[in-house]
């Protein structure tokens, strides 16, 4: 890890009513590092990244990006900060009222004020980078398959060349081959951009492919973090259970008897 981490999270807490989702998260994410956060469904992964992005307001704690506290930041400054981010949503979240190239160019036109013609050129080039031809650019998102939508969403996330890219369950709902294609694209994009990547997933194939470092979240806390090579011999029973996908172990699924 570099000398000054890109993102520093300390004591982050978030509850929804009586349900505690994040219970004091401490996490450092280094510059040009690809961190993967693993954890079961409902462990708070999505809430964690939504707090980092400012889509949710945490109850307590601190998030520093490039050494600057972002919680409680004025709206204007927050909007400018968003230009550092790219986000790939779990359900792709493409704008269905716009054509594919307009989706990809959205951040360039609206966020950066680049002129439409020039933004279209960049958008088509980014679509090419994820293996989609220019003819796809004229289609509507609803005309695409799930895997193609995911690739368009990836192109949109990287179009404005963000410093930090967040991937929320990038391979969920895809067939294993398309999942591997997406994983390869993520690795390539992160390497080409030279940015920081934060991914959340429970797909271990994805973890092994895209991670430099791994952090495991359980019951709202980071219970283990380390380099990818250390994961297999972490000695942590929770991590072992998760990465091998065993029903038996310290993590009890709350399955109610009928």
């Amino acid at each position: 890890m570099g000398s000054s981490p890109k993102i520093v999270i300390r004591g982050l807490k978030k509850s929804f009513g009586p349900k505690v989702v994040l219970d004091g998260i401490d996490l450092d994410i280094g510059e040009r590092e690809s961190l993967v956060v693993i954890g079961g469904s409902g462990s708070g992964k999505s809430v964690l990244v939504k707090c980092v992005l400012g889509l949710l307001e945490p109850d307590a704690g601190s998030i520093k990006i490039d050494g600057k506290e972002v919680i409680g930041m004025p709206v204007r400054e927050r909007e400018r900060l968003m230009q550092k981010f790219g986000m790939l949503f779990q359900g792709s979240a493409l704008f269905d009222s716009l054509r594919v190239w307009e989706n990809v160019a959205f951040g360039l036109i609206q966020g950066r004020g680049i002129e439409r013609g020039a933004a279209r050129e960049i958008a088509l080039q980014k679509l090419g980078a994820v293996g989609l031809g220019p003819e796809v650019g004229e289609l509507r998102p609803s005309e695409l398959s799930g895997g193609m939508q995911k690739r368009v969403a990836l192109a949109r996330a990287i179009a404005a060349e963000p410093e930090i890219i967040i991937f929320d369950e990038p391979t969920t709902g895809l067939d294993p081959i398309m999942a591997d294609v997406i994983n390869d694209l993520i690795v390539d994009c992160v390497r080409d951009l030279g940015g920081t990547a934060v991914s959340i997933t429970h797909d271990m194939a994805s973890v092994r492919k895209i991670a430099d470092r791994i952090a495991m979240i359980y019951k709202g806390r980071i219970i283990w973090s380390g380099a990818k090579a250390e994961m297999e011999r972490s000695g942590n029973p929770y991590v072992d259970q998760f990465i091998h996908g065993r029903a038996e172990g310290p993590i009890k699924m709350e399955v109610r008897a009928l």
Partner: protein
Amino acid sequence: MLDFLARVGRVFFAFLTAAGRLALFALNALSHCLRPPFYPRLMARQLIDIGYYSLPVVGLTALFTGMVLALQSNTGFSRVNAQGAIALIVAVAVTRELGPVIASLMVAGRIGAAMAAEIGTMRVTDQIDALTTLATNPFKYLVVPRLVAGTIAVPMLVLVADIIGIFGGFLVGTYKLNFNAAAYLGQTADYLHRDDVVSGLVKAAVFGFIIALMGCYHGYHSRGGAEGVGAATMYSVVSASILILVFDSALTNVLF
């Protein structure tokens, strides 16, 4: 007994919370109306959607409203031999009351519902969060164009509805009730004051704002997939319709 009171209190507090959230939403939206960036293209599209594409629905309802009004006032006025007031009553009732209210109720069903469904779907499919991550403020991009377009387009629609409504009364008056066409039009022109039309248009602007606000608010806060979007759509139409009638009576008191 205590249990009952507690329940009443809870409902009351829930109402206050909802009213407060709505007021904050409206203030936030209004403050974004004044600060750039603006999206004139989106605003123009909303203007066309609300103003132009609602014309057939609003025109038809206005036509039949004017016709029925002339028929019914004939029924009433013939009992006191005051048929001469039919042209006046049609003109005043349409411009002050029925034009704005009926046109707005139709627009609430057509446009308010569409706004809530569109924004609600964007919410539950993370498209609103996606806007934020693409450094675009969803209030400015989604809410402001709709509010501005609603406030401008509904008065224009109502102006058209006024004319068509009076024309409906004219048709019934001249063809069925055997008024002289020139005399009917002359009476309408003589007795209709500018204030009648202007107060109706002021109401229409308020109603247009309410329709767009309800559509955006309920869509923006929808939760939980298709069911949530359906509920948001329903709430937007119901609450806009009720608020239109509440504000109609309040504004009539203020504007006479």
